[in-house]
């Protein structure tokens, strides 16, 4: 039987890797992948707690999180494509249209 703490450690590592990727990368598509990593880390913590607390609520929340992730990916990638059409780049440093 794997303990709850093992799952939580894996979740914490995944979330930190996502945050580091978000801070370091300049390619917006890879930044989006980092966000997906963080969402998955949260999902893992939800499912682990749901299992060890004998409750199904965590798994229901994960279904909603996956729906939100799908919506976020669709809208975000559409924004990246619109941005690529005007600026010919996906580099986050050069996306400064709204900078005052």
């Amino acid at each position: 039987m794997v303990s709850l703490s093992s799952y939580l450690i894996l979740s914490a590592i995944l979330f930190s890797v996502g945050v580091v990727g978000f801070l370091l990368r300049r390619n917006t598509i890879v930044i989006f992948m980092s966000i997906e990593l963080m969402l998955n880390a949260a999902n893992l913590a939800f499912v682990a707690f749901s299992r060890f607390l004998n409750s199904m609520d965590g798994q229901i929340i994960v279904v909603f999180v996956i729906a939100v992730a799908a919506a976020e990916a669709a809208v975000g990638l559409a924004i990246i494509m619109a941005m690529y059409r005007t600026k010919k780049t996906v580099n986050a440093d050069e996306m400064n249209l709204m900078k005052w």
Partner: protein
Amino acid sequence: MIETALFVILAVVTTITAVLVIVQRNPVSSAIYLIITFFCLAGVYLLLHAEFIAIIQILVYAGAIMVLFLFVVMFLNLEKEKRPIIRHRLQKIFGVLFGAVLLFQIGMIFRSVLLRFSFLDGVKGNFSPEKVAQVGNTQVVARLLFTDFLLPFEITSVLLLVAIIGAIILAKREI
């Protein structure tokens, strides 16, 4: 015993591929490694006896979302980043430092939760693993989704509709 071995293998592969996602210079390689990460996480969900979540992890995440990512990466025809990924050494140092501090903080929060976990015995739900295995994981999730969580479920459909409309408008018009 075999459960522990499987968990260790899946956890190690998940961590290594997650790190590879953020250090790859080519976005296509990043996407491929992210798909491997999602498959390993689906295996971890199976170890947690969350079969329904494992299946939708593969269908929605590894299937739909990652195909969308690969589609956009190949549609934009991005070549490798010519400049090195990180231009400033200071940025790299601070990024990794913030990541380490965050990992420490999350660890501390989880530790305080785990120390208090025995007190949580009183709030344990009535879905014990044996009971869920008897009825079936998917049946239990579906029953809850259409009774207790009906309102959030309906709101999710509105969210998806808004996302569809937003994506069409953003991709269609010149901005």
